[in-house]
Protein backbone atom coordinates (compact mmCIF):
# COMPACT_ATOMS: atom_id res chain seq x y z
CA UNK A 1 0.00 0.00 0.00
CA UNK A 2 1.39 3.37 -0.91
CA UNK A 3 1.89 6.00 1.74
CA UNK A 4 -0.43 8.42 -0.02
CA UNK A 5 -3.48 6.28 0.78
CA UNK A 6 -2.80 6.05 4.51
CA UNK A 7 -4.09 9.08 6.41
CA UNK A 8 -1.20 11.12 7.76
CA UNK A 9 -0.98 13.70 10.51
CA UNK A 10 0.97 15.09 13.41
CA UNK A 11 1.32 14.05 17.02
CA UNK A 12 -1.54 15.48 19.07
CA UNK A 13 -3.39 14.89 22.28
CA UNK A 14 -7.09 15.43 23.00
CA UNK A 15 -7.20 18.97 24.47
CA UNK A 16 -3.89 18.44 26.28
CA UNK A 17 -5.48 15.62 28.25
CA UNK A 18 -3.37 14.59 31.25
CA UNK A 19 -1.41 17.83 31.47
CA UNK A 20 -3.61 18.77 34.45
CA UNK A 21 -6.07 16.00 35.20
CA UNK A 22 -6.87 12.98 33.09
CA UNK A 23 -10.31 12.55 31.54
CA UNK A 24 -11.07 9.13 30.10
CA UNK A 25 -11.96 9.70 26.46
CA UNK A 26 -13.88 6.43 26.14
CA UNK A 27 -17.55 7.15 26.88
CA UNK A 28 -19.46 4.09 25.79
CA UNK A 29 -18.44 0.50 25.16
CA UNK A 30 -20.93 -1.79 23.38
CA UNK A 31 -20.28 -5.52 23.38
CA UNK A 32 -22.09 -7.21 20.50
CA UNK A 33 -22.15 -11.00 20.69
CA UNK A 34 -24.19 -14.10 19.99
CA UNK A 35 -25.43 -16.24 22.87
CA UNK A 36 -24.99 -19.53 21.06
CA UNK A 37 -22.30 -19.40 18.35
CA UNK A 38 -18.76 -20.57 18.98
CA UNK A 39 -17.11 -17.41 17.59
CA UNK A 40 -18.58 -15.39 20.47
CA UNK A 41 -17.28 -17.79 23.11
CA UNK A 42 -14.37 -15.55 24.10
CA UNK A 43 -16.56 -12.48 24.45
CA UNK A 44 -19.10 -14.43 26.54
CA UNK A 45 -16.23 -15.55 28.80
CA UNK A 46 -15.10 -11.94 29.09
CA UNK A 47 -18.60 -10.89 30.18
CA UNK A 48 -18.69 -13.61 32.82
CA UNK A 49 -15.18 -13.23 34.22
CA UNK A 50 -13.91 -9.66 33.69
CA UNK A 51 -16.73 -7.27 32.85
CA UNK A 52 -17.90 -6.63 36.41
CA UNK A 53 -14.39 -5.71 37.51
CA UNK A 54 -14.01 -3.42 34.49
CA UNK A 55 -17.24 -1.54 35.24
CA UNK A 56 -16.33 -1.14 38.90
CA UNK A 57 -12.93 0.29 38.02
CA UNK A 58 -14.30 2.58 35.29
CA UNK A 59 -17.56 4.16 36.48
CA UNK A 60 -17.25 6.83 33.76
CA UNK A 61 -17.67 4.33 30.92
CA UNK A 62 -21.15 3.21 29.95
CA UNK A 63 -21.20 -0.47 28.97
CA UNK A 64 -23.95 -1.88 26.78
CA UNK A 65 -24.40 -5.57 26.19
CA UNK A 66 -26.09 -6.31 22.91
CA UNK A 67 -26.87 -9.98 22.26
CA UNK A 68 -27.58 -10.54 18.58
CA UNK A 69 -28.35 -13.91 17.10
CA UNK A 70 -25.80 -15.39 14.67
CA UNK A 71 -23.84 -12.22 14.27
CA UNK A 72 -20.04 -12.01 14.55
CA UNK A 73 -18.99 -10.50 17.90
CA UNK A 74 -17.42 -7.06 18.07
CA UNK A 75 -16.42 -4.30 20.46
CA UNK A 76 -17.80 -0.84 19.62
CA UNK A 77 -16.15 2.07 21.42
CA UNK A 78 -17.50 5.63 21.30
CA UNK A 79 -15.28 8.55 22.31
CA UNK A 80 -15.69 12.10 23.55
CA UNK A 81 -14.65 13.56 20.22
CA UNK A 82 -17.54 11.74 18.50
CA UNK A 83 -15.51 9.07 16.76
CA UNK A 84 -16.50 5.46 17.01
CA UNK A 85 -14.25 2.45 16.67
CA UNK A 86 -15.23 -1.16 16.01
CA UNK A 87 -13.04 -4.17 16.70
CA UNK A 88 -14.16 -7.59 15.44
CA UNK A 89 -13.32 -10.18 18.09
CA UNK A 90 -14.62 -13.43 16.57
CA UNK A 91 -12.77 -16.53 17.89
CA UNK A 92 -10.69 -14.38 20.28
CA UNK A 93 -10.28 -15.71 23.81
CA UNK A 94 -11.20 -13.64 26.87
CA UNK A 95 -7.61 -12.60 27.66
CA UNK A 96 -7.10 -11.13 24.19
CA UNK A 97 -10.41 -9.31 24.53
CA UNK A 98 -9.21 -7.92 27.89
CA UNK A 99 -6.24 -6.44 26.08
CA UNK A 100 -8.45 -4.96 23.35
CA UNK A 101 -10.77 -3.42 25.93
CA UNK A 102 -7.78 -1.95 27.73
CA UNK A 103 -6.58 -0.52 24.43
CA UNK A 104 -9.96 1.09 23.76
CA UNK A 105 -10.11 2.49 27.31
CA UNK A 106 -6.72 4.20 27.12
CA UNK A 107 -7.14 5.42 23.52
CA UNK A 108 -7.55 9.14 22.86
CA UNK A 109 -10.19 8.49 20.23
CA UNK A 110 -8.16 10.19 17.54
CA UNK A 111 -7.72 8.42 14.25
CA UNK A 112 -4.61 6.27 14.01
CA UNK A 113 -2.43 8.01 11.41
CA UNK A 114 1.00 7.79 9.90
CA UNK A 115 3.09 10.40 11.69
CA UNK A 116 4.77 12.86 9.37
CA UNK A 117 7.00 14.04 12.21
CA UNK A 118 7.76 12.37 15.53
CA UNK A 119 7.39 15.69 17.34
CA UNK A 120 4.97 18.60 17.43
CA UNK A 121 4.98 22.07 18.96
CA UNK A 122 2.50 24.93 18.96
CA UNK A 123 5.37 27.44 19.21
CA UNK A 124 8.00 26.41 16.63
CA UNK A 125 10.11 29.50 17.35
CA UNK A 126 10.28 31.53 20.55
CA UNK A 127 11.75 34.46 18.61
CA UNK A 128 8.95 34.41 16.07
CA UNK A 129 9.31 33.96 12.33
CA UNK A 130 11.95 35.87 10.38
CA UNK A 131 11.00 39.21 8.84
CA UNK A 132 13.10 41.58 6.73
CA UNK A 133 13.63 43.73 9.83
CA UNK A 134 14.86 40.93 12.13
CA UNK A 135 18.32 41.69 13.57
CA UNK A 136 18.47 45.01 11.71
CA UNK A 137 20.34 47.91 13.26
CA UNK A 138 17.81 50.15 15.06
CA UNK A 139 19.62 53.22 13.72
CA UNK A 140 17.75 52.55 10.46
CA UNK A 141 14.53 53.70 12.16
CA UNK A 142 15.82 57.25 12.55
CA UNK A 143 18.13 57.50 9.52
CA UNK A 144 16.99 59.52 6.54
CA UNK A 145 17.60 57.52 3.36
CA UNK A 146 19.55 57.89 1.11
CA UNK A 147 22.34 58.14 3.64
CA UNK A 148 25.97 58.67 2.69
CA UNK A 149 27.12 56.79 5.80
CA UNK A 150 25.16 53.61 4.99
CA UNK A 151 26.22 53.65 1.35
CA UNK A 152 29.96 54.13 1.77
CA UNK A 153 32.34 51.26 1.07
CA UNK A 154 33.86 49.81 4.25
CA UNK A 155 37.48 48.76 3.61
CA UNK A 156 38.82 45.78 5.53
CA UNK A 157 42.40 47.10 5.60
CA UNK A 158 43.94 50.59 5.36
CA UNK A 159 44.74 51.94 1.91
CA UNK A 160 48.27 52.77 0.74
CA UNK A 161 47.56 56.49 1.23
CA UNK A 162 46.47 55.90 4.82
CA UNK A 163 49.57 53.82 5.50
CA UNK A 164 51.77 56.57 4.04
CA UNK A 165 50.09 59.28 6.13
CA UNK A 166 50.49 57.17 9.26
CA UNK A 167 54.16 56.59 8.51
CA UNK A 168 54.70 60.34 7.97
CA UNK A 169 52.94 61.02 11.27
CA UNK A 170 55.36 58.69 13.06
CA UNK A 171 58.42 60.27 11.37
CA UNK A 172 57.24 63.75 12.29
CA UNK A 173 56.76 62.67 15.89
CA UNK A 174 60.26 61.22 15.92
CA UNK A 175 61.73 64.44 14.47
CA UNK A 176 59.89 66.49 17.06
CA UNK A 177 61.52 64.42 19.84
CA UNK A 178 64.99 64.86 18.32
CA UNK A 179 64.69 68.61 18.23
CA UNK A 180 63.08 69.24 14.87
CA UNK A 181 64.54 70.24 11.55
CA UNK A 182 67.87 68.42 12.09
CA UNK A 183 67.41 65.95 9.26
CA UNK A 184 66.27 68.65 6.92
CA UNK A 185 63.89 66.36 5.07
CA UNK A 186 60.60 68.08 4.21
CA UNK A 187 58.52 65.18 5.44
Amino acid at each position, binding site marked *: MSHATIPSGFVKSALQNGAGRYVCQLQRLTLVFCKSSGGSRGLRDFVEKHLLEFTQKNPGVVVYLQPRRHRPPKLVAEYLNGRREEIPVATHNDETICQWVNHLRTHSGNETVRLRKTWHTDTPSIQ*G*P*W*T*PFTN*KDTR*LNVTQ*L*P*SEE*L*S*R*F*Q*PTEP*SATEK*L*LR*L*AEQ*LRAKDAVKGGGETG*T*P*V
Partner: protein
Amino acid sequence: MAQHRVQQWATFARMWWLYDARWQCPFQSAPVIIRHLQGLHKPIYHPLSDVGDHVVVINTEHIAMEGDLWRNWRHFHHTGYPGGFSATRVWKVHEADPTKVLHKQIYSTVKGNLLRRPIMARLHLYPDDNVPEDILKNITGQIRQLREVPKRLDEYTQDERDAFPRLFEWPADYVPNPGKKTVKS
Protein backbone atom coordinates in the same frame (compact mmCIF):
# COMPACT_ATOMS: atom_id res chain seq x y z
CA MET B 1 -5.30 32.20 12.86
CA ALA B 2 -5.26 35.93 12.40
CA GLN B 3 -1.86 36.45 13.99
CA HIS B 4 -0.29 33.85 11.70
CA ARG B 5 -1.74 35.63 8.68
CA VAL B 6 -0.05 38.88 9.69
CA GLN B 7 3.21 37.04 10.41
CA GLN B 8 3.05 35.71 6.87
CA TRP B 9 2.72 39.27 5.53
CA ALA B 10 5.69 40.41 7.61
CA THR B 11 7.91 37.50 6.56
CA PHE B 12 7.23 37.89 2.85
CA ALA B 13 7.22 41.71 2.82
CA ARG B 14 9.27 43.16 -0.01
CA MET B 15 12.12 45.49 0.91
CA TRP B 16 13.19 48.39 -1.30
CA TRP B 17 16.97 48.77 -1.47
CA LEU B 18 18.94 51.77 -2.66
CA TYR B 19 22.27 51.40 -4.44
CA ASP B 20 24.50 54.34 -5.31
CA ALA B 21 26.33 53.44 -8.56
CA ARG B 22 28.70 56.42 -8.44
CA TRP B 23 32.23 55.25 -9.34
CA GLN B 24 31.10 51.60 -9.16
CA CYS B 25 32.01 48.86 -11.62
CA PRO B 26 28.91 47.54 -13.46
CA PHE B 27 30.40 44.04 -13.79
CA GLN B 28 30.89 43.74 -10.03
CA SER B 29 27.70 45.56 -9.06
CA ALA B 30 25.39 43.36 -11.18
CA PRO B 31 25.72 40.12 -9.12
CA VAL B 32 25.19 42.03 -5.86
CA ILE B 33 22.07 43.77 -7.19
CA ILE B 34 20.73 40.49 -8.63
CA ARG B 35 21.15 38.79 -5.25
CA HIS B 36 18.74 41.32 -3.77
CA LEU B 37 16.38 41.20 -6.78
CA GLN B 38 16.04 37.42 -6.42
CA GLY B 39 15.86 37.42 -2.61
CA LEU B 40 18.95 35.23 -2.29
CA HIS B 41 20.09 37.28 0.71
CA LYS B 42 17.07 36.12 2.76
CA PRO B 43 17.09 33.06 5.04
CA ILE B 44 13.62 32.12 3.71
CA TYR B 45 14.80 31.97 0.09
CA HIS B 46 13.38 29.17 -2.02
CA PRO B 47 13.43 29.09 -5.83
CA LEU B 48 9.70 28.36 -5.97
CA SER B 49 8.65 31.25 -3.71
CA ASP B 50 8.57 34.82 -4.96
CA VAL B 51 10.68 36.59 -2.31
CA GLY B 52 12.68 39.08 -4.42
CA ASP B 53 13.18 42.68 -3.34
CA HIS B 54 13.13 45.94 -5.28
CA VAL B 55 16.41 47.73 -5.96
CA VAL B 56 16.61 51.42 -6.84
CA VAL B 57 19.94 52.31 -8.47
CA ILE B 58 20.91 55.97 -8.57
CA ASN B 59 23.76 57.83 -10.30
CA THR B 60 24.08 55.28 -13.09
CA GLU B 61 25.64 57.90 -15.36
CA HIS B 62 28.61 58.09 -12.96
CA ILE B 63 29.57 54.39 -13.16
CA ALA B 64 33.24 53.60 -13.67
CA MET B 65 34.99 51.10 -15.95
CA GLU B 66 38.48 49.73 -15.64
CA GLY B 67 41.27 50.38 -18.12
CA ASP B 68 40.21 50.97 -21.70
CA LEU B 69 36.83 49.25 -21.33
CA TRP B 70 34.82 52.38 -22.14
CA ARG B 71 36.41 52.19 -25.61
CA ASN B 72 36.92 48.44 -26.01
CA TRP B 73 33.77 46.93 -24.50
CA ARG B 74 31.03 46.67 -27.09
CA HIS B 75 27.30 46.00 -26.98
CA PHE B 76 26.05 43.76 -29.76
CA HIS B 77 22.71 43.85 -31.52
CA HIS B 78 21.16 41.97 -34.41
CA THR B 79 17.97 43.06 -36.08
CA GLY B 80 17.28 39.54 -37.39
CA TYR B 81 17.64 40.56 -41.02
CA PRO B 82 20.72 39.71 -43.11
CA GLY B 83 23.47 42.18 -42.36
CA GLY B 84 21.56 43.42 -39.36
CA PHE B 85 24.43 42.99 -36.91
CA SER B 86 25.80 46.02 -35.19
CA ALA B 87 28.32 46.55 -32.40
CA THR B 88 28.43 49.79 -30.45
CA ARG B 89 31.23 51.01 -28.19
CA VAL B 90 30.00 51.19 -24.66
CA TRP B 91 30.86 54.88 -24.23
CA LYS B 92 28.51 55.60 -27.13
CA VAL B 93 25.73 53.53 -25.56
CA HIS B 94 26.32 55.30 -22.25
CA GLU B 95 26.13 58.68 -23.95
CA ALA B 96 22.78 57.83 -25.56
CA ASP B 97 21.21 56.31 -22.41
CA PRO B 98 23.07 56.56 -19.07
CA THR B 99 21.05 53.69 -17.54
CA LYS B 100 21.49 51.23 -20.40
CA VAL B 101 24.95 49.84 -19.55
CA LEU B 102 23.95 48.75 -16.07
CA HIS B 103 20.55 47.52 -17.28
CA LYS B 104 22.08 45.32 -19.97
CA GLN B 105 24.76 44.04 -17.61
CA ILE B 106 22.18 43.01 -15.00
CA TYR B 107 19.85 41.55 -17.64
CA SER B 108 22.62 39.41 -19.09
CA THR B 109 23.79 38.24 -15.66
CA VAL B 110 20.32 37.03 -14.59
CA LYS B 111 19.72 33.45 -15.63
CA GLY B 112 17.70 33.34 -18.87
CA ASN B 113 14.52 31.67 -17.66
CA LEU B 114 10.90 32.75 -17.28
CA LEU B 115 11.71 34.60 -14.04
CA ARG B 116 14.05 37.06 -15.77
CA ARG B 117 11.34 39.58 -16.79
CA PRO B 118 9.68 39.77 -13.33
CA ILE B 119 13.13 40.10 -11.75
CA MET B 120 14.04 42.96 -14.10
CA ALA B 121 10.69 44.64 -13.39
CA ARG B 122 11.81 45.07 -9.77
CA LEU B 123 14.89 47.03 -10.86
CA HIS B 124 14.60 50.83 -11.00
CA LEU B 125 17.48 52.72 -12.63
CA TYR B 126 17.99 56.48 -12.46
CA PRO B 127 20.83 58.36 -14.19
CA ASP B 128 21.24 60.83 -11.31
CA ASP B 129 19.97 61.15 -7.75
CA ASN B 130 16.62 62.68 -8.80
CA VAL B 131 14.32 59.84 -7.74
CA PRO B 132 10.52 60.33 -7.80
CA GLU B 133 9.02 60.88 -4.37
CA ASP B 134 6.71 57.83 -4.54
CA ILE B 135 9.72 55.56 -5.23
CA LEU B 136 11.91 57.20 -2.59
CA LYS B 137 9.35 56.82 0.20
CA ASN B 138 9.38 53.01 -0.20
CA ILE B 139 13.11 52.67 0.44
CA THR B 140 13.90 50.77 3.63
CA GLY B 141 17.53 49.77 3.19
CA GLN B 142 20.74 50.61 1.43
CA ILE B 143 23.28 48.36 -0.28
CA ARG B 144 26.88 49.27 0.45
CA GLN B 145 29.10 50.34 -2.41
CA LEU B 146 31.72 47.84 -3.54
CA ARG B 147 34.55 50.32 -4.09
CA GLU B 148 35.69 53.47 -2.45
CA VAL B 149 34.71 56.65 -4.26
CA PRO B 150 38.02 58.35 -5.12
CA LYS B 151 38.58 61.95 -4.11
CA ARG B 152 39.77 64.38 -6.79
CA LEU B 153 42.72 66.72 -6.13
CA ASP B 154 40.50 69.82 -6.24
CA GLU B 155 38.33 68.30 -3.51
CA TYR B 156 41.22 68.51 -1.04
CA THR B 157 41.76 71.81 0.77
CA GLN B 158 45.04 73.71 0.35
CA ASP B 159 45.98 72.84 3.96
CA GLU B 160 45.52 69.13 3.31
CA ARG B 161 47.62 69.37 0.17
CA ASP B 162 50.42 71.18 2.01
CA ALA B 163 50.39 68.69 4.86
CA PHE B 164 50.77 65.69 2.54
CA PRO B 165 54.22 64.08 3.09
CA ARG B 166 56.89 64.68 0.47
CA LEU B 167 60.39 63.26 0.17
CA PHE B 168 61.73 66.32 -1.67
CA GLU B 169 60.55 69.59 -3.20
CA TRP B 170 60.39 69.99 -6.97
CA PRO B 171 62.56 72.82 -8.28
CA ALA B 172 60.52 75.92 -9.16
CA ASP B 173 61.59 75.75 -12.83
CA TYR B 174 61.00 72.01 -13.22
CA VAL B 175 58.93 70.91 -16.22
CA PRO B 176 57.66 67.30 -16.11
CA ASN B 177 58.57 65.14 -19.12
CA PRO B 178 55.39 64.84 -21.19
CA GLY B 179 56.71 61.72 -22.99
CA LYS B 180 56.88 61.18 -26.75
CA LYS B 181 54.48 63.93 -27.69
CA THR B 182 56.93 66.70 -27.03
CA VAL B 183 55.73 69.99 -28.39
CA LYS B 184 58.55 71.53 -30.41
CA SER B 185 58.66 75.26 -30.03
